[in-house]
């Protein structure tokens, strides 16, 4: 077993760190404060191929690995949780299901534009009455001649409004339960498809989180993704991949809070010495560093399995659970180490703490991750 990064991954890390530091970090506080989608960053990411890291070259992607994609989400989130999730939702929740389930025509039509960043992607599963219990889909899709007619609404959709391509999960035959759920590709601007309320959030405030509304929205028959009735399986598999992305986001936020706290505790003097010299600081930070490293290994191990075609759904659940809870712990303690300053918006740790919280909730709450892990333990 090799825990070292390859030469290619090292080169990639060098690039993404510099990009995050120079292009993303300077905007982090501003987009949070203004609740503004970082469209200029998305353009820059598209230009150098970050919007299509694991997409094969024949579909216009960079032909990289999921490992590299995870490293990108981590490094971006280390300085800006918002930018991390924009990339994660785009790649894991939209480009990946098209790559894994799309017809050749669908792949050729959508992937090159997604990989270049010309188009941003999103994914719509959650509804007001179908969150953790995703099988309770109320959005419907009915075949009418050569078109599917969609009706219903989705909520809490990341990249909503800014995305050009949406993977939409809808009920095609209620009598079949989860086997009656299908997945569709819906383009922005389709008549009958509109963007509803934008959520005002606690954290990741630069990311657009909106409602999607479908009122007799007609899409071509060919925009069905995968098979009729295969939508629930597509959604679950997509979320398995997405969870490693969110785990990487949480990991990045945790690492960012570590970086800030190490810097601050070395500079801050109380009782005549740096607070980093107190054993309380050192022991707590040692514990946190150990957890962050363990979290990183879980993320990389899950991406290693995904890259090598080994089942990874439980690994993804464990990575997300542990990374999210580590991010929450690290950021909360980071604020504590910063004392009163940490509670102000002058220092980034308060933002990191707000950003961390969502990682315990979206793309499957920590409770759902525990259900997935326990499901494997107690499988009959």
């Amino acid at each position, binding site marked *: 077993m090799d825990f070292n990064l390859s030469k290619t991954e090292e*080169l990639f890390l060098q*690039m993404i760190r510099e990009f995050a530091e120079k292009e993303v970090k300077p905007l982090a506080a501003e987009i949070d404060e203004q609740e503004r989608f970082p469209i200029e960053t998305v353009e820059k990411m598209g230009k*150098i*191929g970050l919007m*299509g890291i694991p997409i094969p*070259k024949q579909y216009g992607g*960079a032909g*990289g690995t999921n490992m*590299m994609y995870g490293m990108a989400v981590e490094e971006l989130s280390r300085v800006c949780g918002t930018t991390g999730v924009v990339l994660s939702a785009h790649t894991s929740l939209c480009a990946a299901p098209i790559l894994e389930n799309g017809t050749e025509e669908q792949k050729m039509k959508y992937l090159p534009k997604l990989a270049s960043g010309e188009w941003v992607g999103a994914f719509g599963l959650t509804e007001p009455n179908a969150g953790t219990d995703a099988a309770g889909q109320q959005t419907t899709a009915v075949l009418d001649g050569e078109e599917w007619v969609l009706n219903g609404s989705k909520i809490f959709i990341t990249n909503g409004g800014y995305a050009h391509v949406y993977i939409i999960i809808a009920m095609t035959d209620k009598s079949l339960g989860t086997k009656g759920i299908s997945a569709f590709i819906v383009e922005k601007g389709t008549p009958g498809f509109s963007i509803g309320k934008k959520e005002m959030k606690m954290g990741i405030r630069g990311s657009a989180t909106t409602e999607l509304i479908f009122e007799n929205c007609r899409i071509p028959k060919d925009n069905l993704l995968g098979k009729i009735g295969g939508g629930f399986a597509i959604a679950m598999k997509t979320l398995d991949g997405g969870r490693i992305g969110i785990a990487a986001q949480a990991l990045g936020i945790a690492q960012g809070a570590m970086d800030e706290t190490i810097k601050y505790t070395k500079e801050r003097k109380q009782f005549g010495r740096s607070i980093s010299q107190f054993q309380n600081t050192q022991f707590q930070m040692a514990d946190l560093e150990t957890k962050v490293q363990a979290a990183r290994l879980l993320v990389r191990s899950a991406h290693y399995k995904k890259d090598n075609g080994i089942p990874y759904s439980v690994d993804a659940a464990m990575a997300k659970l542990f990374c999210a809870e580590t991010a929450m712990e690290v950021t909360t303690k980071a604020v504590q180490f910063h004392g009163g300053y940490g509670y102000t918006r002058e220092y980034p740790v308060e933002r990191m703490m707000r950003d961390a919280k969502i990682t315990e909730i979206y793309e499957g709450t920590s409770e759902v991750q525990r259900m997935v892990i326990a499901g494997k333990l107690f499988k009959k």
Partner: protein
Amino acid sequence: MKIVVCIKQVPDTTEVKINPQTGTLIREGVPSIMNPDDKGGLELALQLKDKYGAHVTVITMGLPQAEDILREALAMGVDRAILLTDRKLGGADTLATSNALAGALRNIEHDLIITGRQAIDGDTAQVGPQIAEHLDLPQVSYLENLEYDGKKTFTIRKQTEEGYQMLEVDAPCLVTVLAPAFKARYMSVSGIVEAYGREVEVWGADKIDVADEKIGKAGSPTSVAKAFPKSLKPAGEQYDVDPEQAVGIIVSKLKEKFII
């Protein structure tokens, strides 16, 4: 148009410390990077590639691990990468370095040779101009902008202490570039994915037609006696007086410091 960019791997001097006893750099644990001025020069070359379809070669002389910056250059978009490495080339000062590089450049087609103004580890700014002398090429140092007429003439803006000069020069020529003038592009993800699968040509001293006594330690008339951190010059005092008074002030200041 064929462009060759000379690049150097240097310790990241923003993170380097100097051993006060020996006056040498403490290199342990210090990351190695592509010299910033060279990276600016590489960006200029890649912009000319984007605009005019120029073919860009990078060459570096150094230890085998200098391959890392060549891979970086490949990931940024260069067409060809050459590593000039040989024990015989070790211990070279600027003259021996420029002799070796000039020898290599004689074997590489070039309309334009680009070097950085200076390396952050040596700060001499000598190698670029020396290469031009060896190859008998016109040279413009401290370049901060370059326009190309698409045929053979470059219009160059050269930085001077007072301001700048505008110069016209025909290919083939050599320029030395200032990093701040060219914000280097990021490596592209696909470039990174491909970088380690592409060829880096490794050249030894036998690939260049330069006598052994002109390269390496043997070809180096100078050596580093002492290294010390650069200290900032203070702003100095300014007097707005007539020339006669000024002479008096200068003389008294020089006497004050026992210079005269």
